[in-house]
């Protein structure tokens, strides 16, 4: 591919999803965009770059961005953040909020839904503690295709074995052919909608807990800072942000501070009193 062609893809991906790609990712362009080349009957990536240049093909641009977005997900991924939600964050938020106040949770790169549904399973278990308090879970992603899958709540045998304890499988899933369907009650607890972390997040409203895990690693530093700034505006003063194990806010933004002793958990900087409330 020509350097000019590569530059077109780099700009389309940066603008569309924040994804930062270097020349070492050429193989990813070749493998993931091959189906689009076939569908559009194009001879190579340079031909596709020509179509994308100038922004006159929004549907094609979107297809390229979606194809290049990594959508790996699993239930209760990395375990620890979900244990924190179950044993610390939700009990503390429930104790801190007045009766009747709704709690809102956001899975900010929901992919095929496993993260949001893991939170739903925790909330289901915590119903006695929450004593009828309303909790809303919102799952967002920029890729429509994965959101459609998320809404279905239908997973392969491999997917339901990654991170999902068998007790949860027995409690919440039913077999449909060779696939596994999440119970309607849990699917109904999550609302999935399209959103771009680099777009206007204000319509989503304010959240008490935000999961934005393994997303920022694909962004360049300015884009990470921009996304974290936007996320900070959507987080309640005593809320919590959960990032992936390889991600940090240090050196990227001063809007968040790590919660001491809880790796991967962040509070709004300057909200120390509120932070202590949730730690208690």
């Amino acid at each position, binding site marked *: 591919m020509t350097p000019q062609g590569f530059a077109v893809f780099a700009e389309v991906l940066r603008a569309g999803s924040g994804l930062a790609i270097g020349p070492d990712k050429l193989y990813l362009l070749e493998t993931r965009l091959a189906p689009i080349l076939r569908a559009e009957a194009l001879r190579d990536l340079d031909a596709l770059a020509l179509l994308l240049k100038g922004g006159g093909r929004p549907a094609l641009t979107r297809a390229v961005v979606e194809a290049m977005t990594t959508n790996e997900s699993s239930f209760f991924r990395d*375990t620890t953040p979900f244990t924190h939600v179950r044993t610390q964050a939700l009990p503390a938020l429930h104790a801190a909020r007045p009766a009747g106040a709704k709690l809102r949770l956001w899975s900010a790169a929901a992919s095929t839904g496993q993260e949001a549904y893991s939170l739903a399973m925790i909330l289901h278990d915590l119903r006695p503690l929450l004593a009828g308090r309303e909790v809303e879970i919102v799952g967002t992603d920029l890729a429509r295709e994965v959101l459609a899958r998320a809404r279905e709540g239908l997973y392969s*045998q*491999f997917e339901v*074995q*990654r*991170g999902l*304890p*068998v*007790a949860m*499988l*027995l409690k919440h*899933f*039913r*077999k449909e052919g060779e696939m596994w369907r999440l119970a309607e009650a849990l699917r109904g607890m999550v609302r999935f909608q399209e959103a771009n972390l680099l777009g206007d997040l204000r319509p989503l409203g304010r959240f008490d807990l935000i999961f934005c895990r393994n997303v920022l690693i694909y962004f360049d530093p300015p884009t990470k800072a921009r996304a974290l700034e936007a996320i900070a505006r959507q987080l309640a003063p005593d809320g919590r942000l959960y990032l992936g194990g390889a991600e940090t806010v240090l050196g990227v933004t001063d809007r968040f501070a790590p919660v001491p002793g809880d790796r991967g958990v962040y509070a709004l900087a300057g909200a120390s009193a509120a932070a202590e409330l949730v730690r208690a």
Partner: protein
Amino acid sequence: MARLLVVDDSKVVRKVARRILEGQGFTVTEVGDGAAALAACRAALPDCVLLDWNMPVMNGIEFLKALRAEFGPDRPTVVFCTTENDLDRISEAITLGAQEFIMKPFDEAILLGKLAEVGIA
């Protein structure tokens, strides 16, 4: 490091499981049926049994019942690893005292994830 007993009548499955488990530093013993597994447990109780369902001589469920009757409800940890994948079968295994359940085919991530889930690391 944990000691695992792999019980499966397929040499291929035993070989794959052994390679994955030994790669993590586990000590692995393998047998081909439930009766041999019970004898192995009497000789030296492992920390965890990775257990197939359908086997000659004594199947996985028969072994599990005998194991729990002889050694109690908690030790060793039992993780089924079988082509059985109906909810009723999974429920039966858990009710009889298995702690986790792997549906074949499995891969390294699933096997190690399930072991971590039951505290075998």
